[in-house]
């Protein structure tokens, strides 16, 4: 009997297991334990959370493999790690470390300003960011097995996450209602593979799991994104840049499960301590925004 690894069903399948959950950015093994104890369904192993990458500037790269391995050893839940857009050698290294998912992420400094990684070449699955349906379907065409709306990472301002989720959901609603003969021109206009546009229209959803990311800082933010129709949330700087990370992390996990129950949302939002300070995206110069990275 033959066992097949690295199939698209298996890659996409892990993302399906993460649904309804919270994936948390962690920079140490201690953080990873706190995240797991709070009920995170996976962690993203990083050297710096996006808020620090923003503050410190410079070139942001893949994390030290030693750090990633230490985090992997400290928890039983899946561990993800980020590589730069287009940097397929960082991805090869992360695959050799046996991380469970690679995030080809705009939060790091892009290594290629025209091309993303051909993700079908890997056994490990990839998650990528998107601001609209065209970008999402291009990434899936390259082999991404999970998507996340980009938001604006490291800000604690949910406005861009909402914009990107509404855009993607709106475009899906639009193509569901289009006569089939209009889908080819639509695919051309948004720069997406035609077959994936057809599949999305038929399913009434993206063909892979889609989480929200970039600016989620409170239980209410997480529930907002869930009610807008995403499958789960990434929380980056919002947890470990806040006053009481363990408590806030557990509250965001509960809010993501009970996202339609306002009574529970009120309960878990009580006495969480200081949230991350945050940056107002509307007052940010265009050049400082990172969501525009990705092609």
């Amino acid at each position, binding site marked *: *009997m*033959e*066992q*097949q*690894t*690295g*199939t698209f*069903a*298996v890659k996409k*399948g*892990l993302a*399906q*297991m*993460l*649904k*309804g*959950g919270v994936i948390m950015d962690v920079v140490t093994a201690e953080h990873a334990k706190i995240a*797991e*104890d*709070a*009920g*995170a*369904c*996976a962690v993203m192993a990083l050297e710096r959370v996006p808020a620090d990458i923003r503050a410190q500037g410079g070139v942001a790269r893949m994390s030290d493999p030693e750090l990633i391995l230490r985090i992997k050893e400290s928890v*039983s*839940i*899946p561990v993800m790690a980020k590589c730069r857009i287009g940097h397929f050698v960082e991805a090869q290294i992360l*695959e050799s470390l*046996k*991380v*469970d*998912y690679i995030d080809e992420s705009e939060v790091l400094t892009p290594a290629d300003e025209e091309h993303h990684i051909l993700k079908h070449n890997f*056994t*490990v*699955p990839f998650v990528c960011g998107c601001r609209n349906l065209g970008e999402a379907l291009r990434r899936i065409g390259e082999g991404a097995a999970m998507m996340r709306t980009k938001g604006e990472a490291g800000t604690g301002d949910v406005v861009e996450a909402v914009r990107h989720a509404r855009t993607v959901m709106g475009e899906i609603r639009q193509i569901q209602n289009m006569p089939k003969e209009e889908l080819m021109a639509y695919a051309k206009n948004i720069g997406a593979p035609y077959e994936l546009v057809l599949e999305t229209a038929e399913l009434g959803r993206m063909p892979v799991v889609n989480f929200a990311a970039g600016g989620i800082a409170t239980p209410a933010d997480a529930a907002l994104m869930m009610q807008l129709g995403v499958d789960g949330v990434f929380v980056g700087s919002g947890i470990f840049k806040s006053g009481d990370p363990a408590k806030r992390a557990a509250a965001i*996990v*509960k809010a*993501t*499960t*009970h996202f339609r*129950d306002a009574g529970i949302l009120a309960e878990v939002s009580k006495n969480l301590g200081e949230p991350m300070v945050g940056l107002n995206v509307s007052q940010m110069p265009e050049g400082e925004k990172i969501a525009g990275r990705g092609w």
Partner: protein
Amino acid sequence: MNIGVLALQGDFAEHIAMLKRIGAEGVEVRLPKHLDGLHGLIIPGGESTTIGKLAVAYDLMEPLRAFANERAVWGTCAGAIFLSKDARREQPLLRVMDITVERNAFGAQVDSFEADLEIAELKQATGTTHPYHAVFIRAPIIESVSGEARVLSSLPDGRIVAAQEGHLLATSFHPELTQDTRFHEYFLSLVS
């Protein structure tokens, strides 16, 4: 027939879609009151630590044990771990099935796989002859069964991947990720 699907975290929507295809109603269960009036329950794939912590936080452990005493319950992957009496590490478990599991028994995600299984009971119950194509995602194995629990399916190397104990069912793979409805049909036969 109303079948609850524990909706704390994981791929509960996939189970509900499968149930719909075979004419059963799937109901999301997040709080103890949602168990009222259900004929059976599925505990989906997901992260067993997350599901366990949320079940403890919302006082679901005892109501779920009481439900499993009387009605059919099926756990897939994380759900199978949650039903087991022992998962070899400290985490909340229902301990209603006489099985011991080992989490992530095949390794990391790069070792996740698909394989065909020969499951005699399944073929018999559904009147079919073709093998069952199973999807394993960071899957646990059932290390051992004891008491009334019995092996339903094993890999060629002997590792147990499905077990049954009366009206309780555990699979380390994910029938909800396939187009094959036979396992869901088999579970419904335990419900009625």
